[in-house]
């Protein structure tokens, strides 16, 4: 697909590449610096989770054009162990860094749309979208 580019996450440095990709696309679409920083922070969190918990996977950045709106979607996919209790990890204060506001609920708040799909033993698929205002 033309509107989508991906970065494989295998080691920690790949997180930087994923951020770079996200920033470039965000700039290109016209996001301001604050939103660029939010998008890249969200990418870091998702990529770091892949690196830490799934071992490897990929982060894709997709340009969105929907009924006149322009947006950026982060897609995080891995075939790792998956998450058994999604409700629990989406709860504030659950992440291991507890209280730093980071983690998946934080990503959800930074972005406009958030979708998570995960099955134990199969992997995790997260999509988070930010729309240009």
């Amino acid at each position: 697909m033309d509107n989508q580019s991906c970065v494989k996450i295998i080691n920690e440095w790949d997180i930087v590449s994923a951020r770079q990709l996200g920033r470039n696309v965000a700039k290109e679409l016209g996001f301001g610096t604050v939103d660029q920083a939010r998008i890249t922070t969200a990418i870091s969190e998702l990529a770091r989770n892949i690196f830490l918990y799934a071992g490897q996977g990929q982060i894709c950045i997709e340009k969105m054009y929907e009924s006149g709106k322009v947006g950026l979607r982060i897609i995080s996919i891995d075939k790792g162990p998956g998450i058994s209790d999604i409700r629990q990890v989406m709860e504030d204060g659950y992440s291991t860094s507890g209280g730093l506001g980071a983690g998946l609920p934080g990503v959800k708040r930074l972005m406009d749309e958030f979708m998570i799909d995960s099955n134990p033993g199969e992997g995790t698929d997260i999509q988070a979208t930010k729309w240009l205002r």
Partner: protein
Amino acid sequence: MDFRRSMESKYRELLTSYLKGGSEQALYQSQKFSRNALERNIPPEEMVSLHKNLMIELFPDDFTAEMQESFDILLEVMVGYGFAYREHQNLKHIQQELRTEMEIAANVQQTLLGTEVPCVDGMDIGAISVPAKHMNGDYFHFVKDENNSVSIAIADVIGKGLPAALCMSMIKYAMDSLPENRKSPTVVLENLNRVVEQNVDLTMFITMLYGTYNTASHCFSYASAGHEPGLYYDATQDEFSELPAKGLLLGIDKKTKYREYEKEVMPGDMIILMSDGVTESRTEEGFIERETLLSLIKKYLHLSAQGVVQNVYKELEKLQDFQLRDDFTLIILRRKV
């Protein structure tokens, strides 16, 4: 986004006025500004961005590219703070919901466990029970029956808060379901002991004192399951003594037998029952001395029994800097002169 626009012009005003004179006035205004921005949930990264943009606008020539870029680092760091800020907002909201839920639960508990202090000829009875948190792990109950007697149960779950309170509801219903004619103190405790032993997990223990006051003979018969000992006040001697009572806590061994004790109550004398939240009231120097408690009771002796318990509570609350560490229950039964 009206507020954002006015926020921008307000911030520009602050910045220019400060850069002109460096006045404390402008700094004070900035502090007020931040309150306003916080009320509107403006995250820190937006403030950084606003500042940077205004600097570019105000000093197009002097604000160098390096200076501008340095703000990218600050912005990135502030997104992290913004992350935490948003979580904090949400946690505050959740806390508020939990608090409301606890308040409702406390009301339900009040209704479930509520008891009225009975009016009995020849007796003056007072009782107070205050939870350390929302839910009370102490419990007391009065029953007045036809044949001139008042029964009093006072119990304390080791532990406090919600788990203790849930446990207490069970005790109350177990007690209600005891057959009417088998309410001698030892029988009550032995029955409840079996209920607790079967139903409550091993880490939850309950102490209880159950007594029956016969208003004709003025004899108080009671039994205790490891409960904080009661006191007897002898009015003629103006002296306190401990009401002896031995017995194992409820829920330890289902075969536990309890012993019944009797105390004859003279005119003007008092039976004082309490939970360990009273004797374990703590001040900065440690537990309060028993003497302190006794002298507080004496101080208010001229009042009704209800007046005594309320005032003793008030004083102990103050001594503890208004922070109860444990649920507090105090009951006084006085034989009128």
